């Protein structure tokens, strides 16, 4: 996402957005005093378009468009180092999670392949009750129209027994299906 050149705060500050993030994450973002510890502890700051503390800052200023369209919220691995180290007891990772959900709902996900990955991941979970990595890689790569990405790594991981050739089903598939159905009906509402 492009960094705004001039922050026209009166025009772009979306108060409703701030309230929604706070409601959906259960966190009070105004508690953040920008110490930077989340960004200091994050393992992915190097690849973020906005370090975590700047994401928090953008939320504080109601910059909905910039936040929801950012790469950072999708590169977040949810490792929760930010949550653990935050001196203000803000569960920063939950804020990131809420932003991802809102980003999908608003249809402004920064790269469509990210969403594709999530969808394929969940589809396999629904089918087998757990992730089938080989299948996931294949399906994702084909649908993303880049079938040979990381193909050179295949033999190595296969040799080490890290990838299964056949999917493995869990026992409680019915329960899994119910979870998905519940979610779908919930989202339908």
């Amino acid at each position, binding site marked *: 996402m492009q960094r705004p050149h001039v922050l026209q705060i009166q025009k772009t500050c979306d108060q409703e957005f701030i309230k929604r993030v706070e409601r959906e994450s259960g966190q009070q973002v105004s508690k953040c*005093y920008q*110490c*930077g*510890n989340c*960004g*200091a*502890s994050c393992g992915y700051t190097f690849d973020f378009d906005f370090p975590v503390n700047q994401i928090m800052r953008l939320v504080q200023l109601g910059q909905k468009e910039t936040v929801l369209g950012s790469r950072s919220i999708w590169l977040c691995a949810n490792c929760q*180092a930010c949550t653990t180290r935050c*001196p*203000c007891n803000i569960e920063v990772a939950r804020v990131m999670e809420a932003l991802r959900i809102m980003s999908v709902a608003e249809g402004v996900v920064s790269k469509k392949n990210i969403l594709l990955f999530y969808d394929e991941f969940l589809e396999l979970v629904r089918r087998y009750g757990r992730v089938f990595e080989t299948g996931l890689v294949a399906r994702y790569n084909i649908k993303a129209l880049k079938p040979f990405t990381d193909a050179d790594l295949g033999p190595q991981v296969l040799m080490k027994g890290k990838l299964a050739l056949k999917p493995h089903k869990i026992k409680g598939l019915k329960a899994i299906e119910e979870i998905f159905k519940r979610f779908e009906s919930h989202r339908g509402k």
Partner: protein
Amino acid sequence: MRIGVFICQCGTNIAGTVDTRAVAKKAMEFPDVVFAVDYMYTCSEPGQKEIQDAISSHRLQGVVVAACSPRMHEPTFRRAVKKAGINPYMFEQANIREHCSWIGTDREANTRKAIDMVRMSVEKLRRNQALFSTQVAVNKRVLVIGGGVAGIQAALDCSDGGLEVVMVEREPSIGGKMAKLDKTFPTIDCSSCILGPKMVDVAQKENIRLYAYSEVEAISGYIGNFKVDIRKKATYVDWNACTGCGECTQKCPSKKAFDHFNEGLGATTAINIPFPQAIPKKARIDSDYCRYLTGGKCRVCEKICPVKAIRFDMKDEIVTEEVGAIIVASGYDLFDARVYGEYGGGRYPDVISAMQYERILSASGPYGGHIRRPSDGREPKEIVFISCVGSRDISVDRPYCSGICCMYIAKQAIMTRDHIPDSNCYVSYMDIRAPGKGYDEFIRRAQEEYGVKYIRGRVGRIYPRGDRLVVQGADTLLGVQVEIEADLVVLATGVECSAGARPLAEKLRISYDQHGFYMESHPKLRPVETNTAGVFLAGVCQGPKDIPASVGQGSAAASKVQALFSRDTIETDPQVAHVNENMCIGCGKCEQVCPFGAIRMKTLRDGSRKSEVLETVCQGCGLCNATCPNKAIQLRHSTDDQILAEINTLFD
């Protein structure tokens, strides 16, 4: 009784949500009320005059003012009615501001409530009795608890004013935290050079009695007449005989004793004098490390001592002192950085606290003033200072700013660059708090003259790489992560209340906030008084502050004591418990519940047991009144009759 009622509008504070005119009109219907009026500001000069005029023109015998909380203006109005010739206890104040107008917006309901509150006050006033205070003599001696810079200043000021001072210090020497500092900001003058003379003064003033290595055990009494039990902890050395020659410390074979003064860097001997400028300069045996006291064999110091001052059989001793006022300057502790596991304090020897670094910088410190790393003794070249360790952090329950760390870090960084010109100093900070005189200029000097690199962002973690430490932080101004390979990391540990603060507060019957800092009487207007009469505060025990502010408070507390002692007697509050001996059955329950020890039992000539109130000790809490099965003991000015009359009138 002829009663006058005065309803205050308090500008719009009350009149905004209460129809004061209607309250005054209704008040005229209450029994005994002969005059009622509302007024813009009853507490103002003309407002008080209106009361006084009404007293003479309407021959009033009692006055009700419905206004703010009695905590604000009860003394004002009592004085006003007294001047007009009415006993000050023939006055009642109904709090229709804090208890009524401020808490609701429904004007009609508020007005009804205000009328009820005035009605209750009138009913109480009809049963009031004139009360008279008595005078008690003031014992013009003052106790100073704590011998840090705040306590020293308070003691010296009191001493200069000709007062007798008793000083109690927990550690073997006075001087407090300031004695441990190498330099002081923002002038970089030598800490012990400016504190030393004051410490010597304390020792030499004839009217200061110093109890070092002692603690306050118990306090009883009241303003003007406190009784204080002081526990003199066993030093195993007769301080009257000890000359502080230090022979014993040279020969003591137990050389691994924890060095409190040097913050555990290096070790000291079991018998030791904490530092060269110690006051009193006397030896003390650390019983945890003494070979004789732990193992039963040694007694080398006893043989060495030229004046035969060693007393292995010494026990703690309790002495009692009588004083008229108490200045509490009990100081603070520093945050334990081990709480932050990600910083590795206590785990990595080269991650140290700022106070430890202060000792390293000091010429009297463990390395003789040469900057070395604790791990291998090497001179560090890359030094990182991390601010706000245990400050402004609600995750460790320290939401407040310690107020001194920004400044002492700048000082330490400047000193480091001074000692080791080819070193690099980095300061990880969140915000710089430098509001004192010359303070911000000092921070600028650190950056501009001494080239200290300030990095805006907190540190996430510290981990070892080779014999160095990697500090992983952030520069939020750039929006990037920062990595520094450091030889030494100094954690700017924040201020927290002294470990003994809460128990001491309970002995003193003063209150403290959620973090253990003592509560002043008013945050702006009574900053060194407590809500317990005769007990004053100075220094960091009241809240984080730097040396100039601590010294200022020390002097302020001393001047409060001098003002108190400028009178020979003080007035007692007559609102105390009183026993009706005809009804007292001598059960002694009141004596058991009294928190102030103000009740004792006596035997009359006919042999019957009766309780008796020591009026100067009684604080008027009313516990005895509530406990007495026969209602023989009554709290004056809040008797059962009065309280029941107030309640009954609500249901009439």
